């Protein structure tokens, strides 16, 4: 597991605004997740839910570096990434609940959140498939002569599928502005990654593509911020892609309802005891980067926004039945149904 964030101050830490911005993102993720889980547990809502709890610091780490025009690709376990890229809470919640007011009119759902306005371009449910697509966003940026970048997120398990290999090699040979973020939460569904992965550090695979690779403690917000910043800067400068492996831990099993019988109880207890979000909060206070009042206010604001989003979503209508047939094709002569 990650070494705990030292209580001591960090010379390598960013400025206060950045530190607070990361805290704000982490709080949004943590509180959204807690609300989803409590409403699911109480039966107020029903959906297949993949909790990102424990992985907040990773998305916050790249989130504060990105510009609105930068692009993000993620996976079914994507709530933290969606929020870090700024997908609005109301539309996000409405989409999770399959309502007409959702980001995708309720037609995509949690596994397919898309919000180009925020730069959240693709969320895929197919392990590894977002990686080649991300190279396409990188290619477009390169051809546009723009310095925008694409950050694509995926798990440890995804590093064993063919699309990972093809996407990283292509990004390397074309020197594309893409940052590959492998969120290594130690498990792929019910399987410890080391049982099915030939290498300890997934970032070591970067060398096979002549690509920069680095492993960072994804539970250390400062270290993660630094590594993400370097990778994003490299991509912006046209110096090519990076594979960042951020080590973390999946608090709640693969999906909501998972019995977690395959997870080591003590390992999990230790990880949750070292909750990176709470530790970061303590660290901010201990080192005078923020006052209790400031942080509490951030948290209150986040909770209020979530209340509003939940109410918005719960009171939103389901999509009209006609929506089943729309958006299949952009153009269909005479609206033919095939």
């Amino acid at each position, binding site marked *: 597991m990650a070494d705990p964030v030292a209580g001591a101050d960090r010379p390598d830490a960013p400025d206060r605004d950045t530190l607070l911005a990361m805290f704000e993102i982490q709080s949004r993720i943590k509180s959204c997740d807690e609300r989803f889980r409590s409403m699911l547990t109480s039966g107020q809502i029903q*959906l*297949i839910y993949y909790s990102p709890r424990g992985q907040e610091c990773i998305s916050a780490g790249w989130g504060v570096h990105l510009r609105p025009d930068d692009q993000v690709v993620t996976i079914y376990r994507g709530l933290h990434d969606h929020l870090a890229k700024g997908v609005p809470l109301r539309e996000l919640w409405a989409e999770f609940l399959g309502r007409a007011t959702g980001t*995708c009119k309720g037609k995509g759902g949690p596994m397919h959140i898309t919000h180009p306005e925020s730069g959240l371009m693709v969320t895929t449910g197919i392990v590894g*498939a977002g990686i080649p697509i991300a190279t396409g966003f990188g290619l477009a940026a390169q051809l546009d002569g723009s310095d925008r970048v694409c950050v694509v997120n995926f798990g440890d398990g995804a590093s064993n599928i063919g699309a990972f290999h093809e996407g990283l090699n292509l990004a390397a040979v074309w020197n594309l502005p893409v940052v590959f973020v492998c969120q290594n939460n130690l498990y792929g569904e*019910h*399987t410890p990654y080391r049982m099915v992965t030939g290498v300890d550090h997934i970032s070591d695979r970067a060398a096979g593509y002549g690509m920069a690779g680095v492993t960072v403690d994804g539970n250390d917000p400062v270290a993660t911020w630094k590594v993400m910043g370097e990778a994003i800067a490299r991509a912006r400068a046209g110096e090519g892609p990076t594979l960042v492996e951020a080590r973390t831990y999946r608090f709640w099993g693969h999906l909501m309802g998972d019995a977690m019988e395959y997870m080591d109880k003590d390992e999990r207890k230790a990880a949750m005891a070292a909750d990176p979000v709470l530790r970061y909060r303590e660290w901010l206070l201990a080192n005078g980067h923020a006052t209790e009042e400031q942080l509490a206010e951030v948290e209150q604001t986040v909770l209020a926004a979530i209340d509003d989003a939940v109410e918005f979503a719960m009171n939103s209508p389901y999509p009209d039945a006609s929506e089943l047939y729309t958006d299949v094709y952009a153009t269909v002569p005479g609206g033919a149904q095939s």
Partner: protein
Amino acid sequence: MTDTAAPEIPVLMTGLAINQALDIAMTIDPKVIMLGEDIAEPSGGVYKVTKGLSTKHGAHRVRKTPISEQAIVGAAIGAAIAGYRPIAEIMIMDFLAVCLDQVSNHAGKIRYMSGGQTTVPMVIRTSAGAGRGFGAQHSEMLEAWAVHTPGIKVVVPSTPADAKGLLLSSIFDDDPVLFVEQMMLYWNPAVAGPVPPGDVRIPLGVADVKREGSDVTIVSYGRQVHDCLAVAAKLADEGVSCEVVDLRTLVPLDEATVLASVAKTKRAVIVHEAVQVCGFGAELSSRIHEELFGELAGPVRRVGGANTPVPYASNLEADFIPQQADIEAAVRRTLG
């Protein structure tokens, strides 16, 4: 009609019936092995269908794999040629798309390309179907792709007894078999049924007339068979007699049973969850018209999935899937 309805036979849910078939096959033949993601203990698979098997038969025979579907199917092909009877699990049917090369270009063609020197006795088990709010990439029925690929057999059971008996036959068949298990059937008590204990096999290529009738033939397979039976029961009250034919296997196809039934009723409705356009119903409808032209009281009607990806919103997802009301409407239409 299968006679599995005899009272003393235990009633099981589909997931357990499949688990039993796997257990029996591994017990009677050491050459039977399983490969797939998360299929081993302690979890025993994401749907618990392989529960207990790695403990009983060993983790060397019930093998947890990386998330590498091309490697899963490829390894199964190699092992099959080398004398094993591998059962590869592709967790959800939509993921067939990431390994279809191994399935269609290799499993399906190797015997032919070798002039019959090598055979590929393997099963690809995959869970499939909409209805659980999984969205567009975890809900498809793609059996038509495989039916269009010569060399692959295709099985889609509807009842626990069929699932067990057909899976046993598939495992011991000498050809590659795509075995489609609809998620909605696994642990649904409403479709639990009597399952004869032991190594009781149901041959591939034999359809099952699940209900006899004289006015119209409803042909289906998999989960929708239950909807067809419900519609048949409802219409019976109105004096409409529906015969329900459960194909059970699409390749090989028991065309004779279908044609005999339709020749008798003069009317046919084909029902499946897969997208209707270019679905298996198109093939079957064409054949019925080709074989029984002039004998039909009306055109064969097809009831299939909408020509759209599977939507997430619960109301839209329900509309995507053929419902009993759609089947009933099609039946009434054929009765004109």
